């Protein structure tokens, strides 16, 4: 199981790709899904590779990404 989970608050995504550009593992992409705002939204391609670095969330201007890890 993947160590980290990304929760996307899709209703805010404008498909700007700043998360895609900042991901060091290149596991984010803009998908085919069209969100509430009419933009194509972000998707994660392989969460097994996620290192939980938070770069995507730090660069997201629209508060789309929340990150969780296993445990409590």
């Amino acid at each position, binding site marked *: 199981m993947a160590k*980290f*989970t990304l929760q996307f*608050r899709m*209703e*805010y995504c*404008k*498909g*700007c*790709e*700043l998360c*895609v*550009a*900042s991901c060091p593992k290149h596991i984010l992409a803009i998908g085919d899904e069209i969100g*509430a*705002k009419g*933009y194509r939204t972000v998707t994660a391609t392989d969460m097994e590779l996620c290192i*939980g*670095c*938070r*770069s995507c*969330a*730090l*660069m*997201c*201007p*629209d*508060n789309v*990404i*929340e*990150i*969780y*890890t*296993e*445990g*409590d």
Partner: protein
Amino acid sequence: MKPIFTITEGMLPVSTSYCPGCTHGISHRIVMECLDEAGKLGEAIGVAPIGCSVVSHQFMNVDMLESAHGRAPAVATGIRRVHPDKVIFTYQGDGDLASIGMSEIIHAANRGETFTTFFINNAIYGMTGGQMAPTTLVGQKSTTSPDGRDPGAVGMPMRMSELIASLDGAVYVERVALDTPAHVRQAKKAVAAALEIQEKRLGFTFVEFLSTCPTNWGLTPANALKFVEEKLIPYYPLGVFKTPERKEEAV
């Protein structure tokens, strides 16, 4: 599941009016994260500018006022007079702060007003469609400099952090950038430092964010970040220009 990054309560659950990839959203979030982490969301009063962030009071979950164009420092000065205990900040673009509001910011800084100004330098007027700002780079195209900024005609781009730091009333001045995750982390540290120094009421505190305007620069959001790295940072060096300690040294 343990959260390692969640959205601060300082950001209201609404979609912003900013264009895709505009870094206003990043600077909003880090200011709100710092207030949230200091437990000060309920104690803060912000002053919004004229510019794209004219509606920032609809996005930031703190008490805010709207000011006339460039006059946020004068409004914040008045707020400080009647609210000596609050955390007070202005949030201003470069058209707002360095053009029409130049007089207000300089005099507020020189008086050592004890609020913090967050200065969003995207080297252009965003809201009105991309006119030249005092901060537009030499050669940079805008609707009012279609052949690029000509310093012979309009002078060189103004470095506001350096200008503010030269005033005795300013006690903390730092320039940060929003082009990489590492720089965003540093920007948050600068905001936290400025707010902490505001608590001590030592004088004026100022943080400049090198920001983007993908729409009016005519670049994709990702390429706009590269423009910050390759063009803005070389002309507007990052760093701390003034701290309370260095001020004492100077005296």
